[in-house]
């Protein structure tokens, strides 16, 4: 299951935001994305390298600039 894959990769679930988060890699998966995507895509996203120092959001619909800023502010 996708959720088990994320848990094994040290992601924890933020209940208020419904996001799977990993602060070390600065990646955030939305619950909807995790529910909708196949396992191999989740594994691929966990492994892929990201550029820059900001957070990477894996959402079904990319977050707007305002939402992204708000989430980054909350996640620190």
């Amino acid at each position, binding site marked *: 299951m996708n959720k088990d894959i994320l848990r094994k990769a040290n992601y924890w*679930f933020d*209940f*208020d*935001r*419904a*996001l799977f988060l990993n602060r070390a890699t600065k990646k*955030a998966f*939305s*619950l*909807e*994305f995790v529910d909708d995507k196949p396992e191999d895509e989740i594994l691929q996203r966990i492994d892929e390298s990201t550029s820059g120092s900001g957070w990477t*959001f894996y*959402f*079904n*619909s990319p*977050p*707007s*600039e*305002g*939402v992204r*800023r*708000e*989430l980054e502010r*909350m996640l620190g």
Partner: protein
Amino acid sequence: MPKRSIEDRLREEYFDFLPEIRRVVWQLEAEIRYYTLPILHSLKPYEQLVVKSRVKECESALKSLRRESKQNEGRVLDPGKSGTYSILHLPDLAGVRVLVFPNNRLVEVDETLREHFPGWISKPVKDDSGVSLAPKYYGNCANLDTWVGGEYQVVPMLLGLFWEVEHSAMYKFKEVAESPRMKQLRSDVEQSLGRFEEGIERFVQDYTEPPSTTS
């Protein structure tokens, strides 16, 4: 000066409307108590009818707005759509729950209240397979000039008391509550309570009503 967040603007809106929300909940509760009074007075000793009311908490209202849209990934209020959010969009700011035991009294209470709240929109509480568990209605109190909407539901008492515990325990973990395992566990409890209630009704009927005689 730092810019005010959408949440803070909504908190302010909530507290501006709080006196009005309280008036709606008092009005709705008073009307429901009044309309169900004849049923209350006709209850048998083992039967129960309890009316409870609540004003939705501020933070709970904000959470509902964040979760309002299933598409709202990240559960964040979009600063770009700041003007579109309002706590008045929530239909359940003022809520009344009527707990009834046993189930045959529920139909009576529901029909009585529907007569007095004819324009209210029905949206029953359903289980995961779509079976209706309890009637629920949204609307506005006829004799109150307000934008604040109300909700009332008529609930089998055993189920209602279970929900009080279950909802408060699982509210924060709503997403987990929707997992297949938790859905199954919840469904098992709901079905067991339903069967218990049917059993009690049959038992009472068998022991209190004289057997029908055939000539």
